[in-house]
Protein backbone atom coordinates (compact mmCIF):
# COMPACT_ATOMS: atom_id res chain seq x y z
CA UNK A 1 0.00 0.00 0.00
CA UNK A 2 2.97 2.33 0.52
CA UNK A 3 3.48 2.25 -3.27
CA UNK A 4 0.34 4.35 -3.62
CA UNK A 5 2.28 7.28 -2.11
CA UNK A 6 5.20 6.99 -4.52
CA UNK A 7 5.56 10.07 -6.68
CA UNK A 8 6.79 9.55 -10.21
CA UNK A 9 10.12 11.34 -10.27
CA UNK A 10 9.93 11.93 -14.00
CA UNK A 11 7.09 14.38 -13.42
CA UNK A 12 9.51 16.81 -11.79
CA UNK A 13 10.68 19.06 -14.55
CA UNK A 14 7.99 17.89 -16.99
CA UNK A 15 4.61 18.52 -15.35
CA UNK A 16 3.74 22.18 -14.94
CA UNK A 17 2.24 21.47 -11.50
CA UNK A 18 5.75 20.62 -10.27
CA UNK A 19 7.35 23.88 -11.34
CA UNK A 20 7.00 25.16 -7.81
CA UNK A 21 8.18 23.21 -4.78
CA UNK A 22 6.08 20.58 -3.00
CA UNK A 23 5.60 22.92 -0.06
CA UNK A 24 3.98 25.55 -2.25
CA UNK A 25 0.82 23.41 -2.11
CA UNK A 26 1.43 21.01 0.76
CA UNK A 27 3.23 23.35 3.20
CA UNK A 28 5.21 21.26 5.71
CA UNK A 29 9.00 21.50 5.98
CA UNK A 30 10.89 20.42 2.87
CA UNK A 31 14.18 20.30 4.74
CA UNK A 32 12.92 18.37 7.76
CA UNK A 33 15.40 15.59 8.57
CA UNK A 34 12.74 13.16 9.83
CA UNK A 35 9.24 12.20 8.70
CA UNK A 36 7.69 13.98 11.69
CA UNK A 37 9.70 17.14 11.07
CA UNK A 38 9.01 17.17 7.34
CA UNK A 39 5.28 16.64 7.91
CA UNK A 40 4.89 19.36 10.54
CA UNK A 41 2.22 21.73 9.26
CA UNK A 42 1.57 19.47 6.30
CA UNK A 43 -1.56 20.08 4.27
CA UNK A 44 -2.53 16.64 2.99
CA UNK A 45 -5.40 17.87 0.77
CA UNK A 46 -4.33 21.28 -0.54
CA UNK A 47 -7.30 21.45 -2.94
CA UNK A 48 -9.80 21.20 -0.08
CA UNK A 49 -10.20 24.95 0.04
CA UNK A 50 -9.65 25.34 -3.72
CA UNK A 51 -7.33 28.34 -3.30
CA UNK A 52 -4.49 26.23 -4.61
CA UNK A 53 -6.19 25.14 -7.83
CA UNK A 54 -7.94 28.48 -8.24
CA UNK A 55 -4.67 30.19 -9.22
CA UNK A 56 -4.85 28.59 -12.67
CA UNK A 57 -8.26 26.90 -12.88
CA UNK A 58 -10.66 29.57 -11.64
CA UNK A 59 -13.01 28.86 -14.56
CA UNK A 60 -13.64 25.47 -12.91
CA UNK A 61 -13.23 26.26 -9.21
CA UNK A 62 -15.72 29.11 -9.33
CA UNK A 63 -18.76 26.97 -10.29
CA UNK A 64 -17.42 24.00 -8.31
CA UNK A 65 -17.76 25.94 -5.04
CA UNK A 66 -21.53 25.56 -5.36
CA UNK A 67 -21.53 22.11 -6.99
CA UNK A 68 -23.19 19.31 -5.05
CA UNK A 69 -20.01 17.23 -5.04
CA UNK A 70 -18.29 20.00 -3.15
CA UNK A 71 -21.08 21.29 -0.91
CA UNK A 72 -22.72 17.90 -0.17
CA UNK A 73 -25.87 19.98 0.07
CA UNK A 74 -27.97 17.12 -1.24
CA UNK A 75 -27.27 15.17 1.94
CA UNK A 76 -28.47 18.04 4.09
CA UNK A 77 -31.50 18.62 1.91
CA UNK A 78 -32.48 14.97 2.07
CA UNK A 79 -32.77 14.91 5.84
CA UNK A 80 -33.68 18.49 6.73
CA UNK A 81 -37.36 18.01 6.08
CA UNK A 82 -37.48 15.93 9.29
CA UNK A 83 -36.08 18.67 11.54
CA UNK A 84 -37.67 21.47 13.48
CA UNK A 85 -36.02 24.86 13.14
CA UNK A 86 -33.94 24.38 16.30
CA UNK A 87 -32.94 20.89 15.28
CA UNK A 88 -31.84 22.21 11.91
CA UNK A 89 -29.54 24.64 13.68
CA UNK A 90 -28.01 21.89 15.82
CA UNK A 91 -27.63 19.68 12.78
CA UNK A 92 -25.83 22.41 10.82
CA UNK A 93 -23.50 23.20 13.70
CA UNK A 94 -22.75 19.80 15.15
CA UNK A 95 -23.41 17.12 12.56
CA UNK A 96 -23.32 18.26 8.97
CA UNK A 97 -19.81 19.72 8.76
CA UNK A 98 -18.26 17.09 11.00
CA UNK A 99 -19.96 14.04 9.61
CA UNK A 100 -21.83 14.39 6.32
CA UNK A 101 -19.66 17.03 4.73
CA UNK A 102 -16.42 15.30 5.61
CA UNK A 103 -17.10 13.38 2.41
CA UNK A 104 -17.25 16.35 0.09
CA UNK A 105 -15.00 16.00 -2.91
CA UNK A 106 -12.07 18.32 -3.40
CA UNK A 107 -10.38 18.74 -6.79
CA UNK A 108 -7.64 16.38 -5.72
CA UNK A 109 -10.06 13.64 -4.68
CA UNK A 110 -10.99 13.14 -8.33
CA UNK A 111 -7.82 14.23 -10.09
CA UNK A 112 -4.81 13.38 -7.90
CA UNK A 113 -5.40 11.08 -4.96
CA UNK A 114 -8.24 8.69 -4.22
CA UNK A 115 -10.50 9.75 -1.34
CA UNK A 116 -10.12 8.00 1.99
CA UNK A 117 -13.19 5.89 2.72
CA UNK A 118 -13.69 4.13 6.02
CA UNK A 119 -10.01 4.52 6.83
CA UNK A 120 -8.95 2.84 3.60
CA UNK A 121 -6.47 5.01 1.72
CA UNK A 122 -5.48 3.75 -1.71
CA UNK A 123 -3.26 6.78 -2.32
CA UNK A 124 -2.23 8.59 -5.48
CA UNK A 125 -4.07 7.82 -8.70
CA UNK A 126 -1.00 7.71 -10.96
CA UNK A 127 2.17 8.72 -9.16
CA UNK A 128 0.87 12.25 -8.47
CA UNK A 129 -0.09 12.91 -12.08
CA UNK A 130 -3.07 15.23 -12.44
CA UNK A 131 -5.45 12.89 -14.26
CA UNK A 132 -8.66 13.85 -16.05
CA UNK A 133 -10.59 10.78 -14.93
CA UNK A 134 -10.05 7.48 -13.18
CA UNK A 135 -13.48 6.29 -12.15
CA UNK A 136 -12.31 2.98 -10.72
CA UNK A 137 -10.23 4.78 -8.11
CA UNK A 138 -12.45 7.80 -7.48
CA UNK A 139 -16.17 7.39 -8.18
CA UNK A 140 -15.96 3.73 -7.21
CA UNK A 141 -14.70 4.55 -3.72
CA UNK A 142 -17.22 7.17 -2.58
CA UNK A 143 -20.07 5.50 -4.44
CA UNK A 144 -18.91 1.99 -3.76
CA UNK A 145 -21.64 1.21 -1.26
CA UNK A 146 -24.44 1.16 -3.76
CA UNK A 147 -24.14 2.54 -7.26
CA UNK A 148 -20.73 1.30 -8.44
CA UNK A 149 -21.01 -2.38 -7.47
CA UNK A 150 -24.54 -2.47 -8.90
CA UNK A 151 -23.18 -0.98 -12.11
CA UNK A 152 -20.35 -3.47 -12.49
CA UNK A 153 -22.35 -6.47 -11.34
CA UNK A 154 -20.18 -6.98 -8.25
CA UNK A 155 -23.25 -6.64 -6.07
CA UNK A 156 -24.50 -9.94 -7.42
CA UNK A 157 -26.93 -9.16 -10.20
CA UNK A 158 -26.18 -8.72 -13.89
CA UNK A 159 -23.98 -5.77 -14.72
CA UNK A 160 -25.52 -2.64 -16.19
CA UNK A 161 -25.66 -2.89 -19.97
CA UNK A 162 -23.84 0.43 -20.30
CA UNK A 163 -20.92 -0.99 -18.32
CA UNK A 164 -20.91 -4.06 -20.51
CA UNK A 165 -20.77 -1.82 -23.55
CA UNK A 166 -17.66 -0.13 -22.18
CA UNK A 167 -19.19 2.97 -20.66
CA UNK A 168 -18.22 4.27 -17.27
CA UNK A 169 -19.36 7.04 -14.96
CA UNK A 170 -18.11 10.16 -16.72
CA UNK A 171 -19.56 9.00 -20.04
CA UNK A 172 -22.97 10.00 -18.68
CA UNK A 173 -22.14 12.23 -15.71
CA UNK A 174 -20.19 14.81 -17.63
CA UNK A 175 -17.99 17.52 -16.22
CA UNK A 176 -20.73 20.11 -16.65
CA UNK A 177 -22.71 18.23 -14.01
CA UNK A 178 -19.79 17.39 -11.73
CA UNK A 179 -17.94 20.69 -11.84
CA UNK A 180 -21.13 22.62 -11.19
CA UNK A 181 -22.84 25.42 -13.03
CA UNK A 182 -23.94 28.96 -12.44
CA UNK A 183 -27.14 27.69 -10.80
CA UNK A 184 -27.05 26.52 -7.18
CA UNK A 185 -28.82 23.22 -6.69
CA UNK A 186 -30.15 21.69 -3.49
CA UNK A 187 -30.16 18.08 -4.60
CA UNK A 188 -29.14 16.06 -7.64
CA UNK A 189 -32.59 15.69 -9.18
CA UNK A 190 -32.66 19.44 -9.71
CA UNK A 191 -29.44 19.53 -11.70
CA UNK A 192 -30.18 20.52 -15.29
CA UNK A 193 -26.96 18.93 -16.55
CA UNK A 194 -27.74 15.52 -15.03
CA UNK A 195 -27.94 12.57 -17.42
CA UNK A 196 -31.27 11.52 -18.86
CA UNK A 197 -31.97 8.27 -20.67
CA UNK A 198 -33.63 10.23 -23.46
CA UNK A 199 -30.37 12.07 -24.17
CA UNK A 200 -29.35 8.97 -26.12
CA UNK A 201 -32.49 6.82 -26.29
CA UNK A 202 -34.99 8.95 -28.18
CA UNK A 203 -38.69 8.26 -27.82
CA UNK A 204 -40.16 7.22 -31.17
CA UNK A 205 -36.86 5.75 -32.37
CA UNK A 206 -37.32 2.36 -30.71
CA UNK A 207 -36.41 -0.66 -32.84
CA UNK A 208 -39.62 -2.64 -32.27
CA UNK A 209 -43.31 -1.77 -32.39
CA UNK A 210 -43.79 -3.44 -29.00
CA UNK A 211 -41.25 -1.10 -27.42
CA UNK A 212 -42.87 1.91 -29.08
CA UNK A 213 -46.36 1.00 -27.90
CA UNK A 214 -45.20 0.12 -24.35
CA UNK A 215 -43.42 3.42 -24.03
CA UNK A 216 -46.43 5.30 -25.39
CA UNK A 217 -48.86 3.54 -23.01
CA UNK A 218 -46.76 4.20 -19.90
CA UNK A 219 -45.57 7.66 -20.84
CA UNK A 220 -45.31 9.95 -17.78
CA UNK A 221 -46.68 7.13 -15.59
CA UNK A 222 -43.50 5.10 -15.09
CA UNK A 223 -39.83 5.94 -14.78
CA UNK A 224 -37.48 4.14 -17.18
CA UNK A 225 -36.00 2.11 -14.30
CA UNK A 226 -39.37 0.66 -13.31
CA UNK A 227 -39.13 -1.68 -16.29
CA UNK A 228 -35.44 -1.58 -17.09
CA UNK A 229 -33.76 -2.01 -13.72
CA UNK A 230 -32.21 -5.44 -13.90
CA UNK A 231 -33.01 -6.60 -10.39
CA UNK A 232 -32.30 -6.14 -6.71
CA UNK A 233 -30.16 -3.27 -5.50
CA UNK A 234 -28.83 -2.40 -2.07
CA UNK A 235 -31.19 -0.91 0.48
CA UNK A 236 -29.80 0.59 3.66
CA UNK A 237 -31.43 0.27 7.06
CA UNK A 238 -30.84 1.46 10.62
CA UNK A 239 -28.13 4.09 10.42
CA UNK A 240 -27.21 5.74 13.71
CA UNK A 241 -24.86 8.61 13.00
CA UNK A 242 -22.58 6.52 10.83
CA UNK A 243 -22.88 3.29 12.76
CA UNK A 244 -25.16 0.29 12.64
CA UNK A 245 -26.28 0.57 9.03
CA UNK A 246 -27.27 -2.71 7.45
CA UNK A 247 -27.51 -3.24 3.71
CA UNK A 248 -29.90 -5.74 2.17
CA UNK A 249 -30.81 -6.45 -1.44
CA UNK A 250 -34.29 -5.52 -2.56
CA UNK A 251 -36.36 -4.39 -5.50
CA UNK A 252 -39.23 -2.10 -4.59
CA UNK A 253 -41.78 -0.39 -6.82
CA UNK A 254 -44.07 2.34 -5.62
CA UNK A 255 -45.13 5.92 -6.08
CA UNK A 256 -42.36 8.46 -6.48
CA UNK A 257 -42.31 10.55 -3.25
CA UNK A 258 -41.31 13.59 -5.32
CA UNK A 259 -44.00 13.04 -7.96
CA UNK A 260 -46.90 10.90 -6.82
CA UNK A 261 -48.27 10.62 -10.36
CA UNK A 262 -45.47 8.27 -11.41
CA UNK A 263 -44.35 4.83 -10.34
CA UNK A 264 -40.66 4.23 -9.92
CA UNK A 265 -38.02 2.14 -8.19
CA UNK A 266 -37.70 2.95 -4.49
CA UNK A 267 -34.72 2.49 -2.22
CA UNK A 268 -34.78 2.36 1.58
CA UNK A 269 -32.65 5.10 3.06
CA UNK A 270 -30.99 4.48 6.40
CA UNK A 271 -32.50 7.22 8.60
CA UNK A 272 -34.48 5.92 11.58
CA UNK A 273 -36.18 7.86 14.37
CA UNK A 274 -33.13 7.92 16.64
CA UNK A 275 -30.45 8.29 13.97
CA UNK A 276 -29.29 11.64 15.36
CA UNK A 277 -30.10 11.00 19.00
CA UNK A 278 -26.42 11.22 20.09
CA UNK A 279 -26.42 14.78 18.74
CA UNK A 280 -29.58 15.65 20.68
CA UNK A 281 -31.80 15.66 17.58
CA UNK A 282 -35.07 13.75 17.90
CA UNK A 283 -36.29 14.56 14.38
CA UNK A 284 -39.57 16.05 15.52
CA UNK A 285 -40.93 15.98 11.98
CA UNK A 286 -39.70 12.52 11.10
CA UNK A 287 -43.04 11.51 9.58
CA UNK A 288 -42.99 14.34 7.03
CA UNK A 289 -40.67 12.40 4.77
CA UNK A 290 -40.79 8.72 3.84
CA UNK A 291 -38.09 6.11 4.37
CA UNK A 292 -38.21 5.15 0.69
CA UNK A 293 -36.82 7.49 -1.93
CA UNK A 294 -36.96 7.38 -5.72
CA UNK A 295 -33.77 5.82 -6.91
CA UNK A 296 -31.92 5.35 -10.19
CA UNK A 297 -30.49 1.84 -9.92
CA UNK A 298 -27.42 1.57 -12.09
CA UNK A 299 -28.24 -1.96 -13.19
CA UNK A 300 -30.08 -1.29 -16.41
CA UNK A 301 -31.03 -4.10 -18.80
CA UNK A 302 -32.99 -3.87 -22.02
CA UNK A 303 -35.00 -6.97 -21.25
CA UNK A 304 -36.28 -7.76 -17.79
CA UNK A 305 -39.19 -9.83 -16.51
CA UNK A 306 -41.29 -6.66 -16.59
CA UNK A 307 -40.57 -5.96 -20.25
CA UNK A 308 -41.32 -9.56 -21.20
CA UNK A 309 -44.76 -9.74 -19.61
CA UNK A 310 -47.39 -7.19 -18.61
CA UNK A 311 -48.78 -9.67 -16.07
CA UNK A 312 -45.73 -9.46 -13.84
CA UNK A 313 -46.86 -6.01 -12.75
CA UNK A 314 -50.55 -5.86 -13.56
CA UNK A 315 -51.67 -9.25 -12.29
CA UNK A 316 -48.91 -10.61 -10.11
CA UNK A 317 -48.10 -7.13 -8.74
CA UNK A 318 -44.60 -8.38 -8.17
CA UNK A 319 -42.25 -6.15 -6.13
CA UNK A 320 -44.86 -3.47 -5.52
CA UNK A 321 -44.77 -1.89 -2.07
CA UNK A 322 -47.66 -2.99 0.12
CA UNK A 323 -48.73 -1.95 3.62
CA UNK A 324 -47.50 -5.25 5.02
CA UNK A 325 -44.01 -4.63 3.68
CA UNK A 326 -43.62 -1.19 5.23
CA UNK A 327 -40.87 -0.70 7.81
CA UNK A 328 -41.86 -1.23 11.39
CA UNK A 329 -41.86 2.07 13.24
CA UNK A 330 -41.14 3.70 9.89
CA UNK A 331 -42.37 7.07 8.75
CA UNK A 332 -46.12 7.55 8.34
CA UNK A 333 -45.35 9.10 4.97
CA UNK A 334 -44.43 5.62 3.69
CA UNK A 335 -48.10 4.75 3.34
CA UNK A 336 -48.48 7.35 0.61
CA UNK A 337 -46.09 5.40 -1.62
CA UNK A 338 -48.07 2.18 -1.73
CA UNK A 339 -49.44 1.45 -5.17
CA UNK A 340 -51.27 -1.45 -6.79
CA UNK A 341 -51.39 -1.49 -10.60
CA UNK A 342 -54.70 -2.12 -12.31
CA UNK A 343 -55.18 -5.71 -13.45
CA UNK A 344 -55.38 -6.45 -17.17
CA UNK A 345 -57.11 -9.25 -18.97
CA UNK A 346 -54.90 -12.21 -19.71
Amino acid sequence: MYKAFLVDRSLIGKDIHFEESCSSCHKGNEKGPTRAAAHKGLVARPSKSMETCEKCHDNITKPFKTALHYTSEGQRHGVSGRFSQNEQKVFNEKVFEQSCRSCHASCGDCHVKAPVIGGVNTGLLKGHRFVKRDEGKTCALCHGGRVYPEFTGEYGGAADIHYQKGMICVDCHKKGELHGAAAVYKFRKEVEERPRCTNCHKVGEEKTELAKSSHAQHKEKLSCYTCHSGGAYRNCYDCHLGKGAAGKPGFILGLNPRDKKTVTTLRVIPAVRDTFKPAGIAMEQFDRLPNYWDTTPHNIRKRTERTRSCEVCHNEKKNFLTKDMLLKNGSKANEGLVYAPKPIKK
Partner: protein
Amino acid sequence: MDVLLSSCRSISALVDKDSALRYKKQDIVKNKPVFVTATILALFLVIACLPSALSSEITTCVQCHTSDRILKSLYKPPQVDTSEGEG
Protein backbone atom coordinates in the same frame (compact mmCIF):
# COMPACT_ATOMS: atom_id res chain seq x y z
CA MET B 1 29.64 16.83 -12.27
CA ASP B 2 30.52 15.14 -15.56
CA VAL B 3 31.56 18.50 -17.01
CA LEU B 4 33.85 19.12 -14.04
CA LEU B 5 35.45 15.71 -14.37
CA SER B 6 36.02 16.12 -18.07
CA SER B 7 37.47 19.57 -17.45
CA CYS B 8 39.80 18.12 -14.81
CA ARG B 9 40.82 15.33 -17.11
CA SER B 10 41.59 17.82 -19.86
CA ILE B 11 43.74 19.88 -17.51
CA SER B 12 45.58 16.81 -16.10
CA ALA B 13 46.21 15.53 -19.61
CA LEU B 14 48.02 18.79 -20.30
CA VAL B 15 50.52 18.19 -17.46
CA ASP B 16 50.68 14.37 -17.64
CA LYS B 17 54.30 13.35 -18.14
CA ASP B 18 53.30 10.05 -19.74
CA SER B 19 50.87 11.61 -22.13
CA ALA B 20 51.67 11.41 -25.84
CA LEU B 21 51.18 15.17 -25.98
CA ARG B 22 53.87 15.84 -23.37
CA TYR B 23 54.59 19.45 -22.57
CA LYS B 24 58.01 20.70 -21.55
CA LYS B 25 58.33 23.57 -19.16
CA GLN B 26 58.58 26.07 -21.97
CA ASP B 27 55.43 24.65 -23.60
CA ILE B 28 53.45 25.17 -20.37
CA VAL B 29 54.66 28.76 -20.21
CA LYS B 30 53.71 29.24 -23.86
CA ASN B 31 50.19 27.73 -23.26
CA LYS B 32 49.59 29.47 -19.92
CA PRO B 33 46.59 31.53 -21.23
CA VAL B 34 44.85 28.33 -22.38
CA PHE B 35 45.47 26.64 -19.06
CA VAL B 36 44.13 29.60 -17.10
CA THR B 37 41.05 29.94 -19.31
CA ALA B 38 40.23 26.26 -18.97
CA THR B 39 40.53 26.41 -15.19
CA ILE B 40 38.30 29.48 -14.95
CA LEU B 41 35.73 27.84 -17.24
CA ALA B 42 35.71 24.67 -15.14
CA LEU B 43 35.27 26.62 -11.93
CA PHE B 44 32.45 28.63 -13.49
CA LEU B 45 30.63 25.46 -14.52
CA VAL B 46 30.97 23.97 -11.06
CA ILE B 47 29.62 27.12 -9.39
CA ALA B 48 26.74 27.40 -11.86
CA CYS B 49 25.70 23.75 -11.66
CA LEU B 50 26.28 23.03 -7.98
CA PRO B 51 23.16 24.71 -6.49
CA SER B 52 20.69 22.92 -8.78
CA ALA B 53 22.57 19.65 -8.45
CA LEU B 54 22.42 19.87 -4.68
CA SER B 55 18.95 21.41 -4.25
CA SER B 56 17.07 18.36 -5.50
CA GLU B 57 18.94 16.23 -3.04
CA ILE B 58 18.18 18.57 -0.14
CA THR B 59 14.35 18.38 -0.52
CA THR B 60 13.22 15.55 1.73
CA CYS B 61 9.78 15.46 0.04
CA VAL B 62 11.31 14.27 -3.23
CA GLN B 63 13.92 12.13 -1.47
CA CYS B 64 11.32 10.08 0.42
CA HIS B 65 8.36 10.15 -1.91
CA THR B 66 10.29 9.02 -4.97
CA SER B 67 12.08 6.21 -3.14
CA ASP B 68 10.37 2.85 -2.92
CA ARG B 69 12.81 1.71 -0.21
CA ILE B 70 12.34 4.74 2.05
CA LEU B 71 8.55 4.80 1.77
CA LYS B 72 8.33 1.11 2.55
CA SER B 73 10.36 1.56 5.70
CA LEU B 74 8.18 4.47 6.87
CA TYR B 75 4.74 3.08 6.04
CA LYS B 76 2.38 1.98 8.82
CA PRO B 77 -0.86 0.18 7.86
CA PRO B 78 -3.94 2.10 9.05
CA GLN B 79 -6.60 0.88 11.44
CA VAL B 80 -9.71 0.36 9.32
CA ASP B 81 -13.09 1.44 10.65
CA THR B 82 -15.61 -0.97 9.16
CA SER B 83 -18.71 0.82 10.41
CA GLU B 84 -18.55 3.68 7.94
CA GLY B 85 -19.97 3.39 4.47
CA GLU B 86 -21.08 5.65 1.66
CA GLY B 87 -23.63 5.44 -1.08
